[in-house]
């Protein structure tokens, strides 16, 4: 009711009738602004792309999720809820989906959001020319693989069609039980063809070259600056649910700086280092943000023949005290892992228990140094080697560095095992592991969607992510069954995955280390934040600050 009324009044002079309406609207908005304060958030890296087809970094997912809606949006329990879709139907064979789209939804420039926007967006992501790094998520949708491989040049052959403006049909090659859980992710967002074509290669590189279909519109991003603001999108169909008028996201690379800024009330959020956690556990603002991300060691059987021996792999696993690793070394950002699959991924369809918990084999992934030594000696005898010297590859991120130093000292407790550390930048670690040029590597995998397949399919013997080259026919058969015969039967499929996971834990195909989480300070007056364990880490749609 105070200062900001000036402008609408000036306008109202021109349009007498509309004037009153406008003035009223501002009045109520003003009240709201008084009620809910702006939120200032911190990210540790700068925004790199706002193009849903080219997104890669977590912060990009955050930005896109703040400004867009997909067919579905994950709610605070991480369940996909219809968003731009109103309802959907699936055929009995699980191969055909029909989505009814919400009427009246608009882009931030006022054009209506139609089924064509989804068709265009999905085609663009699959077009090999776009080189989308997340196009693989579409695998299983009709012709997606063929288009990505360049075998099918006609993009319109992709299994997604607009029957009319508000009906979207998706045809699959094979059933995809994870499809709905993937739809809240950025690569599945709609893209407005006219707009994308108009701005061309600049699409998604600056605030002025993006359109919003979601809760916020982005401002002031020039492609490389460290402070980006988001304003409430007044064209958003669900704008009543959006309480925050202004959201500012700052890039703060140094955790000490973030901590100091939080303490001085400049930031409402900051992630915490292990030392900061130790000193803040009693703070009201201390929050542990779950994420469906797991860290594990891959043992390269191609480079170290001894790793083909199950006893040696198990010895390595038994030598690690994961509780100390999680509590004392990675304090606040990890819980001890007992499975390859991350926690917070999915629930057991029978009883609702967390997948990772319900598939854990007691005593398979635990600490027992005596047993480790015994298995190691036995393994060495079987392989005919005297001792073993291996190099542990890790990237130079803080967590990996800490883990590597700790693991080195843990593993060397086994007599006859010597471990050296090789530390490289993140991307070099990725490419060295992809080329299988390592003895042992600390890997980190974040779920792409809420389904066990996002983890367990990785270690099929023909998967490119099976970097340790562990091979087990029974495991492969179980995974194939889960994806084939049992694909439309959630319970049987779950049983397959459970058996596969347990087989892996016993055979130690990979050595699970910890489930990652994120320790942070979240100002207690900030409410309604949604953290997605898979997909965008932070969803601000319902967030508000009192």
């Amino acid at each position, binding site marked *: 009711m105070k200062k900001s009324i000036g402008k609408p009044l000036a306008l109202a002079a021109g349009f007498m009738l509309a004037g009153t309406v406008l003035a009223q609207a501002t009045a109520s908005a003003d009240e709201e602004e008084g009620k809910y304060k702006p939120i200032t958030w911190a990210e540790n890296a700068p925004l790199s792309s706002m193009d849903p087809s080219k997104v890669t970094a977590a912060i990009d997912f955050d930005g896109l999720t703040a400004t867009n809606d997909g067919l579905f949006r994950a709610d605070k329990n991480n369940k996909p809820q219809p968003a731009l879709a109103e309802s959907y139907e699936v055929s009995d064979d699980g191969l055909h989906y029909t989505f009814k789209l919400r009427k009246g939804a608009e882009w931030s420039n006022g054009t209506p959001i139609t089924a064509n926007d989804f068709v265009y967006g999905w085609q663009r992501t699959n077009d090999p020319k776009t080189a989308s790094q997340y196009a693989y998520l579409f695998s299983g949708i009709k012709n997606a693989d063929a288009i990505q491989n360049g075998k099918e040049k006609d993009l319109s052959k992709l299994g997604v069609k607009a029957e009319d403006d508000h009906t979207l049909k998706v045809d699959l090659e094979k059933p995809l039980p994870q499809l709905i859980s993937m739809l809240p992710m950025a690569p599945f967002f709609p893209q407005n063809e006219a707009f994308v074509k108009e701005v061309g290669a600049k699409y998604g590189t600056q605030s002025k070259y993006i359109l919003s279909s979601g809760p916020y519109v982005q401002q002031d991003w020039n492609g490389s600056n460290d402070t980006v603001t988001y304003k409430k999108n007044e064209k958003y169909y669900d704008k009543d649910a959006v309480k925050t008028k202004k959201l500012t996201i700052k890039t703060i690379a140094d*955790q*000490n700086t973030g*901590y100091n800024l939080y303490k001085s009330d400049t930031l409402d959020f900051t992630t915490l*280092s*292990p*030392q*900061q956690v*130790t*000193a*803040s*556990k*009693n*703070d009201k603002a201390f929050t542990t943000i779950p994420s469906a991300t797991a860290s594990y060691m891959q043992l390269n059987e191609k480079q170290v023949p001894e790793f083909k021996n199950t006893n040696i792999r198990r010895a390595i696993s038994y030598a690690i005290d994961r509780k*100390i690793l999680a509590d*004392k*070394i990675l304090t606040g950002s990890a819980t001890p892992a007992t499975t390859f699959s991350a926690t917070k991924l999915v629930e057991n369809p029978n009883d609702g228990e967390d997948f990772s918990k319900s598939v854990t084999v007691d005593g398979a992934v635990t600490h027992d140094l005596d047993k480790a030594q015994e298995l190691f000696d036995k393994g060495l005898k079987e392989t005919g080697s005297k001792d073993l010297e291996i190099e542990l590859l890790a990237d*130079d991120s803080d967590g990996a*560095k*800490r883990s*590597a*130093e*700790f693991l*080195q*000292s843990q593993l060397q407790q086994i007599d006859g095992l010597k471990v050296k*550390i090789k*530390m490289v930048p993140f991307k070099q670690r990725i490419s060295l592991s992809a080329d299988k040029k390592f003895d042992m590597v600390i890997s980190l995998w974040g779920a792409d969607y809420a389904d066990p397949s996002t983890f367990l399919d990785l270690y099929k013997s023909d998967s490119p992510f099976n970097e340790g080259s562990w091979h087990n026919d029974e495991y492969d058969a179980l995974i194939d069954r889960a994806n084939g015969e049992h694909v439309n039967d959630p319970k049987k499929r779950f049983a397959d995955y459970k058996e596969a996971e347990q087989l892996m834990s016993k055979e130690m195909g990979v050595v699970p280390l910890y489930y990652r989480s994120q320790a942070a300070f979240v100002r207690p007056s900030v409410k309604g934040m949604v953290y997605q364990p898979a997909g965008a880490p932070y969803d601000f749609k319902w967030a508000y600050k009192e």
Partner: protein
Amino acid sequence: MAELNQVSAADFELLPNDRKRNNETIEKPSLSFAQDAWRRLKKNKGAFISLWVIVVIVAAAFISIPYANTTTTAEQNVMQQNLPPKAPGNLPGFNGKQKVDGERFDAYKRADVKKGEYHIFGTDQFGRDIFKRVLYGTRVSLQVALIAALMDLVFGVTYGMISGWKGGRVDMVMQRIVEIISSVPNLVVFVLLILIMKPGLFSIALGIALTSWTSMSRLIRAEVLSLKEQDFISAAKTLGTSPWKIGLRHLVPNVSSTIIVQLMFTIPSAIFFEALLSFIGIGIPVPMASLGTLLNDGQTAFQFYPYQLVFPALILSALMIAFNLLADGLRDAFDPRTRD
């Protein structure tokens, strides 16, 4: 005038034979250049103390090899992590008590540390003894600096001498090369090098030397240019002494003071530069440690465990100040203008 005639021969005294020599003797004992410099250095209190500080730190760092080496400093006892300093006796600040999250407690008791076990600098997040780590880190830092200084010495001095001695075309080309190299920022040269080489003690030292040798070569060249014109060199040349012999016999001794002073400046700046690299994340790789990596680890935790920053910072500062003061002192001591 009559009295004069009265002077007899007995009135005269025979002077000794070596009268002349005695008369010419200067009262001060004769000193070589080095002795003279040493004498003047001793007069400079700051520089002299610095020299001893350096000797003590260097000795401690290298004598402690059996006590603090790669194996012993890597020993982890995570249950005893982040213990504050504790020394025998009940010294304030060394009593093993600390305040975390608003609560003050005896950290040693809480971590079940055996009685009589002390960590005088405390322990780090892995429960490693910081005293050992600092000794070890100091050694690694010094090694990096010494290797860099050695490369500086061999390459920079040779380059500068050749350039200065040959003169003309050769000198011009060589100086253009120096100019080009020194107009690339050292961080850039370093980053490019470290991207292709495996990070480690030697590659970091090499990276530092790659950028610092140019100033050494410049100084040497300037000295050689002026020495070249002097008579004793001309004499040696006329006598047909080979250039190599002239270089070793006449040039090196005459530029040695410049070399020593320059090295005294190279060493601390190498230590410093390595520390900075650690902060960026391209310094000495784990599980090795240097003063730089210790400072960087300490810096991230100083609000809660200040001692993890303070001890490595003290040692680093002591080394830096000592080297700089010593370098200043040596420069003055070698400077003939300040001769008294």
